[in-house]
């Protein structure tokens, strides 16, 4: 017995001794991952030369229908047929789980030899870090030589987001629509209480109170007047509407970009926003557990169960088939949600952030020997009908053209539906459908939703594009942001949760300590660097 114990204990000590190697061993094991059997090897009959292999990252959302895998499905075959064969390229896909794209990409990049030829991320800090560490291929000359269609498709403005200190290290995907958020209210509750649609933040407060006191949904104390989470779609519209108008200099220097969004923590008005949230919370107008809801799952449930009176969300998120609105209508008879624009700033505008014109940062690692083929692949996607086909499928089976806009065919066959499950993740050069103009893009976006929501989606999209605040683009990447963004984003969310839940008499003191901690943990470094870069930009 005692000997057994001894043995156990040795293992234990060793484990504690070697905890540090957690990270290192991760790097080591990474080398041994991924080596898929090559089914297509030698199947290329037409050409005498051996085809070269092009490896491309692909997001895996774990939603492949039966018969398909993320690396072998309709579109991988279609691309192999239409791009691979004529160019004598064997296209292979390397799956990366969507939910841990940055972590997995770090591991892939560190593995050196096994890294795909085309990788991408949404996180500008990850892109900047790779570029700074010298791990990426300079794409400028390659684009000039092999990517004329791609260059034309993206345009100068979008391409400029992929530059690092003047060098084109990434190809940013183009967004088809820059609007982000709209707000939504239970119209049937308003009607029941004979209340008008609130037009300002103050009116909203009164409406929320009425929802709580008069309980139009007859929920018996379970009502959540304002649906809140700790995801940006819920708190950003509220917070940004409290930000006061500022000079250009303040906008550049006081904004903090953590990840792909700008955060107003240092801008005047931020504290007022928190104070408003604190008031709502302490009066029971926000869910007590909102700080636990990171992925909006709880909010979605509460909306579809008819508990929530008002909330902000990505403009089209609630309208999907079997989405929260669809389910709400099934659960609660007569429930009606209206898209509204309520939060108002000091200028009387419904200010809310919008997307930067770029989506994914598409990169080619320096170690890749297939950079030319990679650019050819992206250029091929941008040319002719290729992007359109991937995004919309087959005419007659997936869509029909109405006024040049593809409209989803109703009651599609299962085969046709399954075909499209990963179309968005294959069309990496674009976020959203590209039809030539914003108007058409928005229309197509609305038409992909269930028919009964078409009109409302259009309203919500209009709201999302109204009074938007542009992201701040600095001349060069802010190193402190690359370094501290993850930590500070956590702290920012913590500040929102703690300040909202604080007892009103403790608000001031907690606010002060938390901001101090934020500044000391990297916020000050970002502020200093942005001020410096702004000065450089002015003196030019």
């Amino acid at each position: 017995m005692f000997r057994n114990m001894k043995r156990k204990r040795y293992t234990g000590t060793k484990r504690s001794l070697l905890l540090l190697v957690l990270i290192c061993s991760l790097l080591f094991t990474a080398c041994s991952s991924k080596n898929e059997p090559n089914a297509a090897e030698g199947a290329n009959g037409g050409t005498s030369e051996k085809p070269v292999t092009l490896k491309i990252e692909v997001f895996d959302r774990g939603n492949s229908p039966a018969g398909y895998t993320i690396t072998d499905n309709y579109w991988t075959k279609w691309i192999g047929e239409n791009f691979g064969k004529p160019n004598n390229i064997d296209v292979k896909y390397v799956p990366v789980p969507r939910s841990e794209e940055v972590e997995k990409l770090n591991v892939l990049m560190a593995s050196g030899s096994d890294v795909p030829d085309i990788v991408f991320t949404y996180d500008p800090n990850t892109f900047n870090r790779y570029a700074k560490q010298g791990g990426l291929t300079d794409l400028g000359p390659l684009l000039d030589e092999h990517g004329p269609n791609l260059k034309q498709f993206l345009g100068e403005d979008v391409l400029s987001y992929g530059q690092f200190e003047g060098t084109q290290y990434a190809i940013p995907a183009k967004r088809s629509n820059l609007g982000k958020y709209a707000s939504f209210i239970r119209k049937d509750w308003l009607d029941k209480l004979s209340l008008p649609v609130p037009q300002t933040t103050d009116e909203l407060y009164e409406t929320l109170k009425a929802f709580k006191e008069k309980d139009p949904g007859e929920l018996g104390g379970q009502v959540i007047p304002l649906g809140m989470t700790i995801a940006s779609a819920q708190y950003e519209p509220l917070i940004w509407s409290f930000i006061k108008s500022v000079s250009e200099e303040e906008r550049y220097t006081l904004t903090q970009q953590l990840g792909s969004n700008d955060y107003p923590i240092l801008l005047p008005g931020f504290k007022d926003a928190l104070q408003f949230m604190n008031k709502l919370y302490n009066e029971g107008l926000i869910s007590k557990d909102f700080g636990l809801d990171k992925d909006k799952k709880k909010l979605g449930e509460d909306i579809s169960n008819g508990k929530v009176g008002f909330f902000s969300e990505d403009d089209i998120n609630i309208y999907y088939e079997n989405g929260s609105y669809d389910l709400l209508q099934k659960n609660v008879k007569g429930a009606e949600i209206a898209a509204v624009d309520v939060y108002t700033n000091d200028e009387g505008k419904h200010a809310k952030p919008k997307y930067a014109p770029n989506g994914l940062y598409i990169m080619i690692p320096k170690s890749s020997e297939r950079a030319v083929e990679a650019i050819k692949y992206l250029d091929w996607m941008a040319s002719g009908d290729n992007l359109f086909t991937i995004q919309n499928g087959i005419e007659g089976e997936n869509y029909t053209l109405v006024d040049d806009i593809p409209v989803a065919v109703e009651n599609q066959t299962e085969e046709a539906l399954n075909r499209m499950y990963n179309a968005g993740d294959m069309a990496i050069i674009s976020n959203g459908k590209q039809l030539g103009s914003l108007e058409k893009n928005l229309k197509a976006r609305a038409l992909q939703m269930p028919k009964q929501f078409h009109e409302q989606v259009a309203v919500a999209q209009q709201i999302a594009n109204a009074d938007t605040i542009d992201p701040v683009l600095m001349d060069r990447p802010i190193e402190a942001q690359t370094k501290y963004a993850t930590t500070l984003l956590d702290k920012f969310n913590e500040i929102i949760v703690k300040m909202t839940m604080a007892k009103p008499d403790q608000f001031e003191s907690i606010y002060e300590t938390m901001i101090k901690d934020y500044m000391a943990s990297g916020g000050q470094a970002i502020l200093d660097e942005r001020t410096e870069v702004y000065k450089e930009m002015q003196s030019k």
Partner: protein
Amino acid sequence: MSAIAYLRRYWQLYALLVLPLTYFIIFKYGPMYGIQIAFKDFNFFQGIHRSEWIGFEAFREVFGMRDFYLTLRNTLMLNFLDLLVSFPAPLILAILLYELKAVWFKKLSQTILYIPHFISWVIIGGIVYQVFGTESGMVNNLLMSLGFEAVPFLTDKSDWLITYLLVGVWQSAGWGTIIYLAALTGINKELFEAAGIDGAGRLKRIWHITLPGLKPTIVVLLIINLGHMISIGFERPYVIGNLAVREYSDVLSTFVYRIGIESGQYTLATVVGLFQAVVGLIFVLGANYTSKKLTDESIL
């Protein structure tokens, strides 16, 4: 016996050791090569070897971070409280089980007590949020329907601490009894009988026979636990923790995850790991030394 004759006679015993030794060399000592990351400006496009040496610069940076001290404090605090609450629990449970006479009931309760050990923390986290949520958790729904105020088990830091500790006991206590129960089988039954004849009651027997019989095991386990004071599992604080209680739930392992895996600052993460390893070693040796002096029980 000459060395050759010795080897010829016992070579099988050494051959048996080859496999475990290989395991330790490959998976435990091999990765130590990576320790040098702590002293280099690690750039994974260059690899460990070609990254530049920076001396102790990364250590200075880590020791200057506020989050480092916060997470260090939380790690020590959570581990210390865990030691107070979770360490005695399996011991008490084991003694209770040992005293049971009905074998079927003993077996049944043992199995039920083990089960939580096999549930992953991610799932436990999900269950905890369903059960202890302030607004929709089962416990609070019950409390509120009985007319009590809802208790913020997960969002108030002191309440969260209690939730954290008790969930730990629930998960690990049953499993922990195995070692004690095994040790208990080693106690000579005659001692109990003799004590019974001499008039010792149940409590006296536990105090004078069972506990002294378990003493070596308790000491060994205590030393192991002390060695782990500075290191903490990642899953439990990460899954049960949340933004509202980050002041307590942010620990060294989540800190390493954030700066290492999430922000890609491997050098800093390695520094923290190395720091944990060194302090952990000091704790083990210290505890072992003290134990040797005080009780004559030790593991080295």
